[in-house]
């Protein structure tokens, strides 16, 4: 088995790739806002936030082999940082956010105080998840904890964070979370123009994150990261420190989830523990698995397709949509283990008009992450 997968950029020339990127960007930034109603545009904005998380998870899991089932934690941290800022802006100076009033809190908790500053809150939304991920990663990757153990540990942390949020109603809003977010940096979120601006902000952030991730995986560092994923021991013998390599990817991945959380709050208006715990964390991994891990486009597609399907299925069949969604997962995993991106690839090879020689399996990280023989 050829272990060290070198990033293969498919058969597209750089110019073609740029063209496709611009075309998709144009659809998201120009066509979608013009065609969709405010409600549907907000939903698309939510999906794009999820796509940012998916890119991050793909970086950690698809390219770094670190299966994390705890990204709800990082997403939630970003979301709560932003939520605290917006709730404070809304309450006005010296006043308490609404939920503290009905929770019987009389003084603004010390934790909340710095979040009145937009600069602090926005940097915290990205840096806090990164710092937590880096600390967690440094602790466990150095012990050479891999595979299921990382998954379990990250999942436990997400669960613990959700329980903490629920238990501290006076500080966090408890099970409700932070609701009724109506302004963003002083702009009224009920105004369709401002709603569109928030959407555009998200679309632009997704584009930047995609390019950033693309740069990372194509860089020298990206190759080392994939090498660590495939054969960590060999990389260590080559003189690299796999711990550092993995911690960096894990922290970037967490930072992306934090950014997605921060963008999610103004577009959806709520951040609650229900978006933080184990179930949403697993869903996030499903997006990437369904989209095709190890391909950035696949991760984005997975997040968009799964969430679009969730919305439309639950609207069309409110009583039975969960079964259909489950069926969708099973079908995709059973027949197309490489996800949507895998299907697209095969279709392109079949009908693309241009014959591509059958690619060795090793280009697919799905195989590469298996225990090496």
């Amino acid at each position, binding site marked *: 088995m050829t272990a060290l997968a070198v990033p293969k950029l498919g058969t597209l020339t750089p110019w073609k790739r740029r063209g496709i990127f611009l075309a998709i960007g144009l659809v998201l930034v120009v066509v979608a806002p013009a065609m969709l109603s405010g409600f549907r545009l907000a939903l698309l904005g939510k999906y794009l936030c999820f796509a940012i998380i998916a890119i991050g998870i793909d970086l950690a899991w698809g390219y770094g082999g670190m299966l994390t089932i705890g990204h709800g934690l990082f997403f939630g941290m970003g979301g709560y940082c932003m939520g605290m800022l917006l709730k404070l802006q809304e309450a006005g100076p010296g006043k308490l956010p609404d939920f503290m009033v009905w929770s019987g809190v009389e003084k603004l908790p010390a934790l909340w105080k710095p979040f009145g500053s937009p600069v602090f809150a926005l940097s915290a939304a990205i840096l806090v998840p990164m710092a937590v991920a880096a600390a967690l990663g440094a602790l466990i990757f150095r012990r050479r904890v891999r595979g299921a153990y990382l998954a379990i540990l990250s999942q436990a942390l997400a669960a613990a964070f959700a329980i903490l949020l629920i238990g501290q109603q006076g500080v966090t809003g408890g*099970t409700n979370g932070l609701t009724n977010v109506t302004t963003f940096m002083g702009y009224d979120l009920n105004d369709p123009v401002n709603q569109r601006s928030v959407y555009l902000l998200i679309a632009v952030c997704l584009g930047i994150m995609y390019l950033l991730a693309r740069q990372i995986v194509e860089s020298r560092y990206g190759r080392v990261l994939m090498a660590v994923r495939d054969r960590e021991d060999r990389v260590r013998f080559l003189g690299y420190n796999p711990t550092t390599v993995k911690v960096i990817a894990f922290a970037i991945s967490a930072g992306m989830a934090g950014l997605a959380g921060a963008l999610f709050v103004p577009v959806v208006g709520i951040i609650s523990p229900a978006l933080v715990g184990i179930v949403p964390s697993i869903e996030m991994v499903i997006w990437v698995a369904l989209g095709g891990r190890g391909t950035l486009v696949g991760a984005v597609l997975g997040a968009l397709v799964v969430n679009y399907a969730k919305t439309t299925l639950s609207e069309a069949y409110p009583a039975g949509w969960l079964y259909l969604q489950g069926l969708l997962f099973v079908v995709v995993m059973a027949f197309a283990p490489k996800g949507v991106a895998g299907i697209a690839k095969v279709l392109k090879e079949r009908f693309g008009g241009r014959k591509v020689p059958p690619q060795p399996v090793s280009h697919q990280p799905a195989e590469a992450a298996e225990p090496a023989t």
Partner: protein
Amino acid sequence: MKEASKLKKLWLATLMVLAMLGAACGQKAGDTSATGGTSTDDGDTIKVGLLHSLSGTMAISEVTVRDAEKLAIEQINAKGGVLGKQIEAIEEDGASDWPTFAEKAQKLISVDKVATVFGGWTSASRKAMLPVFERNKALLWYPVQYEGLEQSPYIFYTGATTNQQIVPGLDYLKGQGKKRIFLVGSDYVFPRTANKEIKAYAQANDMEIVGEEYIPLGNQEVATLVNKVAAARPDAIFNTLNGDTNTAFFKEWKTKGIAPDAMPIVSVSVAEEEVRAIGPEFLAGHLVAWNYYQTTDTPENAEFVKAFKAKYGEDKVTSDPMEAGYVAVHLWAAAVEKAGTTEVEAVKRAAAGIEFAAPEGRVTVDGPTQHIYKTARIGLIGPDGLIRQVSGSDGPIKPDPFLRGYDWAKGLT
């Protein structure tokens, strides 16, 4: 050969996925055509939204309310509908997830253009939907008792507020000479706010709160809690636990062997449906506070219970939130008839003062608070799983969501 069969498989998968998405889109295309109309009065039907959890931890409770609302819609349609048009119910699944409630509420309002929405159960879901309805100036009818201290101009509350349920419950305990109270509740906004109010009441009425404990929603590990309660030896326990934690709590409590009349548990979120789920043998002898029981003796209730069982099965029970959902639909229909339109502001104005002979007795919409006058009833759970009234208010109580009529509640708002 192998490549070819793989390709075939992939094709099959793609087709299946596309077919499913297509099915979903087909439905959606129907929705979009509806957005062409600007008012719900245009068609032959008036659309209303039913937004409850049909999946997840709250589904078991919320489905029963949805069933009662559908019964009311069916009854109104059988009598010719409202404004001469049939009511068409559009259902959405809140999935026991608060942000989903907000999303689906927005969908019902902006895509389906419903005239009103009946929905929610937990206060968390209501708090999530509230900004959506206020932003869109649309109407929500919320059918479950709650913690008060809220009055949205775009929500009608047909369940009890605090002074129609919890305060009468405390008055009853006080009348029975119970002085030492232990508070147990689920960890979310309703129990915490309710307990804040209960503590204020206790302070003013010479009662002592000997303990206050919370358990996260859905948690079943109650042994520690039960031991703490038993060790504190209270005169009574005030229970605001919600969902399946109640099952674990009552089963564990039974092992302590304390007779219900010596140390009664007063529950405010345990109704007939929950009694049936937990098992009457664990609950018999304990108390509940509500506004309606299946046994409530009014001609309207006899009819309601009969109609409900005829539609959904003889083994079904009716409960307070179901009745409140049923009443909400009828009140809305009456307000629309009175206003002559489904336009929200007109319906709100028309709703003030509307009376309805409900299964619980006469109810009246209080215009300024958008809550309704309700009769408070303390009930005793029987070994047969039914609840019988042991004490009640003299008549419907005026809703007072901010407890302005109570001196002890001054510091709460």
